[in-house]
């Protein structure tokens, strides 16, 4: 911050020429003060903590020279006894319009170098819930980017006000409304609690930085006071807890630069709002590219896993695939990718993790991803290898059945076109969450596909318990029954009955998927706009 002698009141009373230059000088001074943020020392501390300043973050994320600031002069002016401006401390929030990947976004972020990014009492809020920046996104129907580095209000605001505000004085109405209108993305780049933490959750995509950012409902001092437990903030709300374990935040990044790059990647698949189509990019990967490697990717031995990530990469357009929540709910993979340049959402079971079985966290993850794609008119491709819901005490304690049925419920309400391609297993109710029976319900399969209400193994033991127990050699009898029933499990028999619509050669997967996704375009264009919400989800 620099000091200066300036009397704004006096300047306006002077003759025009002097007033003009003086006023320009004051504008310049106030703008320079804004750029200086919390001062050199505070900026140095921010850097020493491994963090960028809010303005450096804007430069890193947005297209060069595209930032058009709003509220530059918001702050606290200090005046001397003659009402001369001495200094300005800028508001602890920077906001405006900028471009990302050439498209406009509303962007705002706390400035931690000014009073730790705490809430700023002004005539109109610049950022935070209900702030100008949310209005900008709402009225101009452009994505909102929140760069979060603050803990919200403090108890000291009660002293300033003279009373304690009721929860929701700055409510989340607009934040909630935006989730049905425009893409909302948040990066947690410091320690977030309170309102900023709440907004990070009210986002379509969120990312945080391993080691330098934390998020929680309440920080270590509150935990100590409430539960008498000592815990440091990294353990309580670092990425290992908030991303890997809890799924509170979608993705983790190793640096702020990577976190901001993830935001750029996410937005590249999104339309500007729900009234527009997702952006199609030129694609030089041939749509008729057949991959012989896909014929051998599924091991013959049914108990051996394979890389579903490799399978996805062989099918979708060459280039980036953006995985959401790669470290949480790992039995399902949810990725944004492209087929002939058109954005698609991939939901693929991961046989390397619990055989691809759906547990509570993978159900949550699949539900959120399906809702994201449905909201923004991105067609879904299910690459299915799911043996059913996860079993066992832990799974039951986590309400796997309820969360899994919620996935079935949400899948049945999708209005975006869906394609189901069975790679190997498709069993039970978890299998139903990979189809939409309220739509055309087109189910394709590879020859390696197998399905049913439940797998023959285990299923036989339950259904023929007495038969097996009364036989001379129960183990042999169980194997006999399994072999007998497995003969009916051939996917070709189901195709004969047209109960699965087509069995395809795995090598032709890409051409076929590209064709259906191109076909989906007309239908998507005819159904743009906000999505209706109905009913009570389980």
């Amino acid at each position, binding site marked *: 911050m620099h000091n200066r002698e300036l009397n704004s009141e006096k300047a306006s009373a002077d003759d025009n020429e002097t007033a003009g230059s003086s006023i320009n000088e004051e504008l310049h001074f106030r703008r320079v003060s804004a750029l200086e943020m919390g001062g050199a020392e505070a900026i140095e501390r921010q850097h020493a903590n491994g963090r960028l300043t809010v303005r450096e973050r804007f430069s890193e994320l947005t297209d060069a020279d595209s930032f058009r600031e709003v509220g530059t002069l918001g702050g606290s002016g200090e005046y001397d006894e003659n009402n001369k401006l001495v200094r300005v401390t800028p508001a602890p929030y920077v906001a405006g319009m900028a471009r990302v990947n050439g498209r406009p976004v509303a962007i705002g972020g706390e400035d931690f170098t000014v009073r730790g990014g705490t809430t700023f009492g002004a005539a109109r809020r610049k950022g935070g819930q209900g702030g100008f920046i949310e209005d900008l996104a709402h009225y101009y129907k452009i994505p909102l980017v929140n760069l979060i580095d603050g803990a919200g209000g403090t108890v000291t605001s009660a002293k300033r006000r003279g009373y304690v505000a009721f929860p929701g004085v700055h409510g989340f109405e607009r934040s909630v409304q935006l989730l049905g209108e425009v893409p909302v993305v948040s990066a947690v780049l410091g320690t977030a609690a309170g309102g900023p933490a709440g907004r990070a959750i009210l986002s379509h995509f969120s990312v945080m930085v391993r080691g330098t950012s934390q998020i929680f409902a309440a920080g270590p001092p509150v935990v100590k006071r409430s539960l008498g437990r000592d815990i440091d903030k990294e353990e309580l709300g670092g990425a290992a807890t908030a991303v890997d374990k809890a799924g509170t935040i979608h993705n983790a990044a190793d640096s702020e630069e990577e976190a901001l790059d993830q935001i750029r990647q996410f937005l590249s698949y999104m339309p500007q709002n729900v009234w527009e189509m997702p952006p199609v990019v030129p694609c030089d990967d041939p749509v008729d590219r057949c991959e012989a490697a896909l014929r051998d990717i599924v091991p013959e031995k049914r*108990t051996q896993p394979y890389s579903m990530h490799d399978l996805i990469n062989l099918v979708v357009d060459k280039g980036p695939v953006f995985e959401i929540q790669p470290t949480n709910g790992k039995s399902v993979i949810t990725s944004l990718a492209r087929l002939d340049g058109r954005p698609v959402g991939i939901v693929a079971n991961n046989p390397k*993790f*619990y*055989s691809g*079985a759906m547990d509570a966290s993978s159900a949550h993850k699949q539900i959120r991803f399906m809702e994201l794609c449905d909201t923004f008119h991105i067609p879904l491709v299910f690459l299915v290898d799911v*043996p059913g819901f*996860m079993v066992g005490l832990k799974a039951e304690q986590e309400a796997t059945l309820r969360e899994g049925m919620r996935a079935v419920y949400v899948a049945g309400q999708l209005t975006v076109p869906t394609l189901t391609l069975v790679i190997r297993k498709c069993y039970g109710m978890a299998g139903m969450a990979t189809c939409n029976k309220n739509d055309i319900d087109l189910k394709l399969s590879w020859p390696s596909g197998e399905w049913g209400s439940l*797998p023959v193994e285990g299923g036989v033991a339950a259904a023929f318990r007495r038969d097996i127990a009364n036989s001379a050699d129960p183990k042999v009898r169980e194997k006999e029954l399994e072999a007998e029933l497995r003969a009916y499990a051939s996917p070709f028999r189901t195709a004969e009955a047209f109960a699965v619509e087509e069995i395809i050669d795995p090598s032709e997967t890409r051409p076929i998927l590209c064709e259906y996704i191109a076909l989906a375009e007309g239908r998507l264009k005819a159904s743009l706009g906000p999505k209706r919400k109905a009913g009570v989800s389980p």
Partner: protein
Amino acid sequence: MSITNVASEVIGSVWKVEMSVGDTVKVGDTIMILESMKMEIPVEAPVEGTLAELKVKPEDSVDEDQVLCTIES
């Protein structure tokens, strides 16, 4: 010299142990194979080094996050 714990990502049991204490391991080498949800789940070395300790044997039950072995590098 540092010790890396290799933990199980899944609930299941140990099916086969493919290496012995003292063996040199490279990143991605299969140290053992677990069985979970009727699937063989290879446990791969996350770092290069020497297999320092095996904490489980075939048929042992394992929990999520349970340390299975350690690698010294």
